[in-house]
């Protein structure tokens, strides 16, 4: 059964169309990487899925809930990581998670905060202020925030942006662990090879529609960059 279903999605900012009748479907437990050049509409698309932006036209269902009509229900099963950490610099790591846990009404919050801090390797830094964290540590904490309520669907918007190699590798590990736990993952990225390595399917967004969808043996790291260029150039 499809966890995410999008039909004929259109999004315009004023008169400028960004998404032009996009169709998209993701099965439960699938890890889909969304590739595309700057301005292709990846962030706009993910913001619509996250109920942060209203579609101009089209149908969207996540876990069967319709957007934007049933947005609060969708938000409860959604975890979002963007290139901004969505964290408060003047609060500690633990306080940030406690705050978001309160917003989600989570029971046994202290135990859950401990669990996710352990998962992202930040338990020892729990009392440090977030503004003292490196970019990599902030991104790990952002993932802890996003998985705090154990969401079924995870949206990652270019999560590797600004990370050094070590931090990016650690993030890859966390992404794989999230996927291994059976969560449905949609990740936008500019890194073609990383996307092919992590995801079970790669969709290329170009000119406001999914121009190419590849999975399984089609995700060949030798041919993927060439196919990407063909699709996005044409």
């Amino acid at each position, binding site marked *: 059964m499809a966890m995410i279903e999008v039909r004929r999605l259109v999004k315009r900012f004023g008169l400028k169309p960004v998404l032009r009748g996009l169709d998209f479907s993701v099965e439960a437990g699938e890890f889909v990487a969304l590739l595309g050049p700057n301005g292709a509409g990846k962030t706009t698309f993910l913001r619509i899925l996250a109920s*942060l932006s209203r579609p101009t036209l089209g149908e969207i269902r996540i876990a069967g809930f319709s957007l934007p009509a049933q947005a609060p229900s969708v938000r409860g099963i959604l975890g979002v990581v963007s290139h*901004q950490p969505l964290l408060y610099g003047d609060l500690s790591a633990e306080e940030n998670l406690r705050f978001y846990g309160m917003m989600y009404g989570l029971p046994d919050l202290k135990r859950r905060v401990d669990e996710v801090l352990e998962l992202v390797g930040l338990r020892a830094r729990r009392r440090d202020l977030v503004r003292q964290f490196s970019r990599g540590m902030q991104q790990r904490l952002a993932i802890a925030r996003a998985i705090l309520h154990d969401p*079924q669907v995870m949206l990652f918007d270019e999560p590797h942006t600004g990370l050094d190699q070590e931090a990016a590798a650690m993030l890859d590990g966390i992404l794989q662990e999230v996927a291994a736990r059976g969560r449905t993952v949609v990740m936008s990225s500019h890194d073609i090879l990383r996307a092919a390595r992590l995801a079970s399917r790669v969709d290329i967004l170009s000119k406001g529609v999914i121009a190419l969808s590849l999975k399984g043996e089609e995700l060949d790291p030798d041919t993927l960059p060439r196919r990407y260029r063909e699709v996005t150039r044409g």
Partner: protein
Amino acid sequence: MAEPLARPSDLAVRRKGGALRSFLRTIWAVLWKDLAAELRSRELLSAMLVFALLVILIFNFALELDVRTRGTITAGVLWVTFSFAGTLGLNRSMAVEKDRGCLDGLLLAPVDRSAIYFGKALGNLVFMLVVEAIVLPTYSALYNINLFVPGLLLVILLGSIGYVAVGTLLASMAVQARTRDVLLPILLFPVVLPVLISAVKASSGFLQGAGWAEISTWINMLVAYDVIFIALSYMVFDYVVEE
């Protein structure tokens, strides 16, 4: 299209409480977060306070007043000070949410978004009241005038509620724009004018010993504007913050 899967994760199922409890919990969470962050950074309060004290100090030097005139202009000076310092606080309070993308973090939570508005508005009200609590004795000392009149304190509370109610809503609109620092006062002052006029008139009435019949009209207007602005903000906040 598929039928609803409707199988939220175990944690989601075990979420606590009903709608009202969730609403109140969200308000408390946002208020707690704002107070905790401000206690640590003191950025917002110190900026508001320094600005407010500078304003009353400048007025003190600019206006050489006899005892009678002081009673007449005090209400105006006080509300100019409160409203300018308040604008500074409102701008900063929403900028903190926007700069690190935290506003998105708030909007992603599965809660009634008007609860987020009330949490932010309560935080702004606390900051404004703290500034007012420091400005009042300072003003009293500088101008040698007693401001600790219960009626005046009530007017300050009602005026601040109205100011913060509409200010928080407009600040969440203005924060989306690049020119938010300029935009907020331009949007806010025309809208909040009825509150400021009522507050100045009522404050002036209490300071000059006017009768209740004269003052009550302005108090009633303040209460009415507070209710209208709060109700309006409750209804439209969700639309204001969404793209």
